[in-house]
């Protein structure tokens, strides 16, 4: 089982495919769950406080807007943990955790910069593309398994 960072980190399809083919998807839900299940000061809805953008300073400088630093505090640790990544280009309609284009750019860059197996593709727009989409992801994930057992 390899920890695969999914981008968009909120993607239902990537979360499903990674788990379906036997690996662990790393996405927003993992970090949000950690916040929601950790006691502290009440700060609904995400239980994120001013401390989170401060933690984000590890990945983005102080002049970077607080929303980006806050989001990076969710993703930074996951990127560090990731052993592989699947990136779908242009998640132009993923809101909330993936709602900031600047965070998304930085996140993509960090994933590309990291020396891990990476698959980049885009959303399918037809049945034929659906086949290619699933085939590429399955092959990528199967290869990860082979590398793991090798």
């Amino acid at each position, binding site marked *: 089982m390899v920890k695969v960072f999914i981008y968009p980190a909120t993607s239902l399809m990537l979360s499903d495919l990674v788990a379906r083919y036997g690996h662990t998807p790393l996405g927003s839900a993992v970090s949000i769950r950690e*916040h929601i299940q950790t006691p502290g000061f009440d700060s609904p809805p995400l239980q994120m406080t001013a401390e989170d953008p401060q933690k984000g300073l590890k990945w983005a400088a102080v002049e970077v807007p607080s929303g980006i630093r806050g989001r990076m505090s969710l993703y930074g640790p996951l990127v560090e943990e990731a052993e592989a990544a699947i990136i779908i280009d242009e998640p132009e309609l993923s*809101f909330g955790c993936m709602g900031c284009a600047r965070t998304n750019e930085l996140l993509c860059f960090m994933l590309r910069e990291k020396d891990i197996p990476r698959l980049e593709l885009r959303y399918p727009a037809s049945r034929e593309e659906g086949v290619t989409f699933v085939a590429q992801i399955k092959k990528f994930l199967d290869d990860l398994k082979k590398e793991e057992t090798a």
Partner: protein
Amino acid sequence: MKPYIPEYVGTVTKYVFVDSPDTTPQDIATAAYEVAQGVMVKETCFGCQITGSPEDVERIVAHLRKLDPYRIFVKDRGFPPGDARRCRADLGGARPGYLGHEFEMKMARYISYGLEAVDKMTAEELEKAAGTPLPTEEPLDADIVEQLFMED
């Protein structure tokens, strides 16, 4: 500041989405209830949400996937179901994540088709199918086009 005492510590929550002519969201929820054994299952308009220990949730998900393997999609969720912090009824509007699901579910049929096709492929066929590049190539930069033209 008010202290925060979390609920459902140690649990995981998964969304189960279905987009199928043969299986309704209600079918999914009913099937989940049947094998729930006390695990929290909540029926939704798209399928259901399951909250429990990772092992319990995985057991139910595995059971549900068998019902319509290519048309059921499962995703991790940070919040337990019905949480007032994310609930549409309390916020006056859908949380942003809902629209993202709406967006991806529109391509569910292509992916379902892909899942079914890929499932029947041999290793060689998979290799070949995966070989087709998916990202359409970026349009060439004007400077590069000009350079190629000059070289010609």
